[in-house]
């Protein structure tokens, strides 16, 4: 019974991603969209929390939102998977349920 967690806020601006990671369970997936994509950039202050989460969860980032904010795919920390909107739909369908951390 896996959950897709959707986060759309920058972890530098809001506590949504931190709160999400504090409640996601082993085997869950976390998708970063909209302003949350800035949390996926390697070398940022927040990336260690994401790397820790990736020990037992999958983390995804929406490529279109990355590109809009000027970030090339090679800036994304290793292990974070880049998806398009079709991939977003697949994640929503393939997990048993979803939760948006607004």
């Amino acid at each position, binding site marked *: 019974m896996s959950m897709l967690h*959707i986060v*759309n806020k920058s972890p530098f601006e809001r506590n949504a991603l931190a709160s999400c990671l504090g409640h996601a369970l082993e085997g869950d997936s976390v998708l970063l969209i909209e302003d949350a994509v800035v949390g996926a950039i390697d070398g940022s202050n927040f990336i260690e929390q994401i790397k820790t989460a990736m020990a037992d969860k999958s983390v995804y980032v929406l490529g279109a939102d990355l590109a809009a904010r000027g970030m090339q795919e090679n800036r994304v920390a290793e292990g974070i998977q880049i998806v398009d*909107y*079709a991939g*977003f*739909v697949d994640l*929503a369908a393939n997990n048993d349920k*979803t939760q*948006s951390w607004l």
Partner: protein
Amino acid sequence: MKFTILVNEGPYQHQSSDSALQFIRAALEKGHEIFRVFFYHDGVNNGTRLAVPPKDDRLIQSEWSTLAEEHGVDLVICIAAAQRRGLMDADEAKRQGLDANNIAPGFRISGLGQLIDGNIEADRTIVFGD
């Protein structure tokens, strides 16, 4: 698979309407069904026909109407949230004694029960907001 989509913010101010539209188009492309899109909170402002953004920008409110027309997607605006914010259809405007209405084609105004019904009927509910 059947999806119900909840949109909690108005157009332009937040990306939520844009993200929801992109998600819905991708889902339809993959052969999924969009059971209902429910507009709540400032999301009701997606349903106005009085918007005229700059010519070189997208017209979000029309994109919703197009979605309803081309794919028969059910676009439901919450009546309580709409009344607070001034989004009216002809019937409701008349009932309230107002001299104008501003709803766009393809949208209908109804109660919160339509959201719960959508949550029950759909396999997944996806929430877009602030």
